[in-house]
């Protein structure tokens, strides 16, 4: 019997707490596969966020630091500057990265910190129960936007890849999704590229992953995937927004 696929060594054999249909688990696996394939497992140090992925430190086999809400890029900066040989990632959600941690992500890019950021955009605050995120779509209902996000009152969703692309220090910016096998394969390629960049000392690299949140979208898993395709992708087009890795 030939084993075609198995749990990557960089992912621990423990049950995850994520809701059924959530995208976090897929992204964790893609990252762990990347660590194995790039043979960097022993050099990776991760930063887990506040939010749904707060327990990510229990799932990855590498050493992990769990820090304060939004501060992942600053914590990763401290780790990377102290251990330049480490492959350091910051794993963050949309409230974490695009709201409370806006200064930290922007300035990590400005300094072109040689870190990799994995940004999970599901357009909602998950762990706290479905409040409006900076990435919540216009008209999307959230517990703090009960009538739907109204730009008059709450402004418009923020596109982080496009924004960070304006910063000279950002070197690789890609937006991917994990709604279909094809997109999962593309997501893997982008994640791998973002870590290869760090191995090669390229500079600030970030992958934004459009991810589904069936629980807080009040949708079954299939409808949640549909929401990613029909509602999120028009606001957040997939693609590579910057790739200066080859230079």
């Amino acid at each position: 019997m030939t084993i075609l696929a198995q749990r990557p060594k960089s992912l621990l054999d423990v049950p995850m707490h994520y809701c059924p249909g959530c995208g976090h688990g897929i992204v964790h696996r893609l990252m762990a596969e990347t660590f194995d394939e790039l043979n960097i497992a022993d050099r990776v140090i991760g930063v887990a966020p506040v939010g749904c992925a707060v327990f990510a430190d229990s799932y990855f086999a590498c050493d992990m630091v769990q820090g304060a809400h939004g501060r992942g890029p600053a914590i990763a900066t401290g780790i990377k500057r102290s251990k330049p040989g480490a492959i350091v990632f910051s794993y963050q959600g949309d409230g974490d990265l695009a709201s409370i941690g806006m200064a930290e992500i922007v300035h990590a890019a400005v300094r072109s910190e040689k870190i990799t950021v994995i940004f999970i955009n599901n357009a909602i605050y998950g762990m706290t129960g479905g409040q409006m995120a900076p990435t919540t779509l216009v008209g999307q209902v959230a517990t703090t936007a009960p009538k739907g996000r109204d730009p008059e009152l709450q402004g418009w969703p923020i596109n982080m890849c496009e924004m960070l692309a304006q910063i000279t220090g950002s070197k690789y910016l890609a937006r991917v999704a994990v709604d279909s096998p094809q997109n999962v394969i593309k997501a893997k390629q982008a994640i791998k590229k973002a870590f290869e960049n760090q191995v090669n000392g390229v500079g600030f690299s970030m992958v934004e992953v459009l991810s589904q949140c069936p629980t807080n979208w009040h949708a079954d898993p299939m409808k949640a995937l549909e929401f990613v395709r029909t509602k999120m992708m028009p606001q957040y087009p997939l693609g590579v927004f910057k790739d200066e890795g080859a230079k």
Partner: protein
Amino acid sequence: MTEKTLRKGNEALAEGAIRAGCRFFAGYPITPQNEVPEYMSANMADAGGAFVQAESEVAAINMVYGAASTGTRSMTSSSSPGVSLKQEGITYLASADLPCLIVNVMRGGPGLGSISGAQGDYFQATRGGGNGDYHVIVLAPNSVEELGNFPKLAFDLAEKYRMPCMILADGILGQMMESMSFNFDPVDPNQLGKFDWAVDINKNGRKKNNVFSYKGDNLIADVVERAKRYGYIEKTEPRFETRQTEDCDVLLVAYGLSSRACMEAVVKGREEGLKVGLFRPITLWPFPSEALRSAAKNAKAVVCVEQSLGQLVQDVKLALNGAKPVYLNAYPAGGQPDGGTILPAVKSALNGGTEGLFDLQRHAEGFSYECKRDASLGVQGDWKGGK
């Protein structure tokens, strides 16, 4: 031990930190501590370490959180409003059991306050300015000599007890120049052993390490267990200095720069026939309560001299627990004591007078206050504004 040289307080502090093996510094500009990041930016790279000018004090303390997670001797420095911003990171550092050095070169507060030296952050430093039950060790230097030598002590204590250590200085101490020498050999951080809890590369098969602050169901056990360390520190680590306390009638209690003025008051007072002594806490947490009780044993009164509105005096009262009358000689928000302003308070404490003694309620005698809304200015709902 180095030769004595003339150094500015903030520069002595920065050089002392590098000599003590600090190899990561992150900070944000704020007066009156700017010489610290400036010195670090010029010298840290040559020492083989990293200097980062952070986008904010919040980012700086979180960079320290990351660097400290790797076992690197790490520090940040700031001044009062900036240290308020760092409180988020400090409580996380305490929760994650991370050793590091935080320096507060205090200025006048509250708010943006002023850039003058002050001592208004005693509560914030000793009570834990962030959320939750925790302490940081707080060292209070009163000379450029101590500013330069305390970083070594701070890192040693922080690492011994796996907790943040703070040096609480003030703007005048940071800015003034004095002759000083370093009393320790430079530490080569590359020769320091690793910690079994730190995150690192090349794990060589050891179990994975997590540094984390979310304790969930284990929180109660975690906090109760850490409290044993706090209790042990209270028993073993209080540091203090005394001057002529054996026969004193009035015991002055002061830390940091205020204690220098008190030294003058002790000498001047004794010239006038007043038996004045001084007790100087060097660790503000742990507070040297037991030592203060014995220093005050024969005193008739205790006078706290502080550049704040009555903060240190609370610890003094707690320590003495009603055994002696405790008075306050206060210089809030950047006021400066000297021997001439302290001695009237000493005399008042002996003869029942009030000159030089500050009491909040007496301060408000005959005073009343009420802020009122005035409809003749217009009403809030009137978008056109008032008259």
